[in-house]
């Protein structure tokens, strides 16, 4: 009697666990798609931002583009690399949906997700620091706030940061999901 009871409880537990893992993997796939949209949108929005002032000012330069500032160039490159990685990791995510018991590939995914999240965060925070300086300037170092002149350039660069922040949060949630899926006992 006891042997029968333990068998049925083990059968129930082994039926439940792959279902939860599969749900986690499907959610991970959906988040990956959303993160691709966020990162790619940021790269394109920052990369296509130019503004030319119609009049001559005290500045010699009256045209602003993303590659005038090396941090914005780094931001565009980092966003492009991360969105390329996310596209390439979609097959791995689909593999995790099909084979919910896979463990070694989940470890690879966790590590690569963490590395890409670090890259994207450093690019986004560098661009955010420069956007902050462009908005406020700095009195002690005599750095003038260029947003007074280049209004639409500033607005577009600030807006493009939002997509990358969303992608960072989604990448972090994907790491949590992979960690939770790894920790479940089979």
């Amino acid at each position, binding site marked *: *009697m*006891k042997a029968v*009871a*333990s068998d049925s409880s*083990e059968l129930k537990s082994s039926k439940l666990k792959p279902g939860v893992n599969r749900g986690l993997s499907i959610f991970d796939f959906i988040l990956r798609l959303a993160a691709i949209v966020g990162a790619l949108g940021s790269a394109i929005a920052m990369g296509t931002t130019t503004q030319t002032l119609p009049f001559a000012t005290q*500045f010699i*330069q009256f045209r*602003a583009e993303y590659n*005038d*500032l*090396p*941090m914005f160039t780094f931001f565009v490159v980092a966003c492009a690399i991360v969105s390329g990685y996310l596209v390439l990791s979609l097959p791995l995510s689909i593999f995790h949906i099909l084979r919910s018991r896979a*463990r*070694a590939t*989940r*470890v690879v995914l*966790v*590590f690569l997700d*963490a*590395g890409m*999240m*670090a890259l994207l*965060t*450093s*690019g*986004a*925070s*560098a*661009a*955010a*620091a*420069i956007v*902050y*300086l*462009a908005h*406020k300037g*700095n009195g*002690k*170092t*005599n*750095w*003038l706030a*260029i947003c007074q002149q280049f209004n639409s350039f500033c607005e577009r660069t600030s807006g493009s940061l939002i997509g990358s922040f969303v992608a*960072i949060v989604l990448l*972090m949630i994907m*790491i*949590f999901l*992979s*960690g*939770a899926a*790894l*920790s479940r*006992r089979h």
Partner: protein
Amino acid sequence: MKTGESTSIDIAPETNNSGPIGKKKSTTPLLAAPVPVTDRGTHRMKRGLSIFDFVLRIGVLASALAAAATMGTSDQTLPFFTQFFQFEASYDDLPTFQFFVVAMAVVAGYVVLSIPFSIVCIIRPHAAGPRVLLLILDSVALTLNTAAAGAAAAVVSLAHSGNSSTNWLAVCNQFGDFCQQASGAVVGSFAAVLLFLLLILFSALSLKNSH
């Protein structure tokens, strides 16, 4: 029937608590019962990973604290007059550096608080709960650390080379020591970022090998 039922009730608690032949599969407690002989190899590897994780955590603490302290004590006063009105520079002249100091201090505080969890993972290598918690909190701390490092790196590189398109002058030509200390602090925080990545990898590897 009655004797059968009473036998099953008697046996069930015994097998849960029995010593060397007891099976752990029926209950999944956080701190596990004694380990069967076949799991010794994984046991040793996980204990090795946990010890290495602890050592890395001490390293992260050292570099995060060093970065925060280096940036926090970086002030320089020039002994002569220049074309700038201001001839002293300190970390709180730039809000980005203030954010850097605060964020690195928070990360160092988190690492101190996570050391007990790491010790629990050394003592009980097969526990999955502390490891998942460390994985999650480590990735949050990684994000904060990288954000502080990236923002400070952007401002430091701007201070070193200036920017002609926006007419921002390179401050480091005047304030050499201040710039050097700030650059050193940024390097230290990027070292902490790399160590965090390794910590996340080790947590994931240990979780993979749990049965």
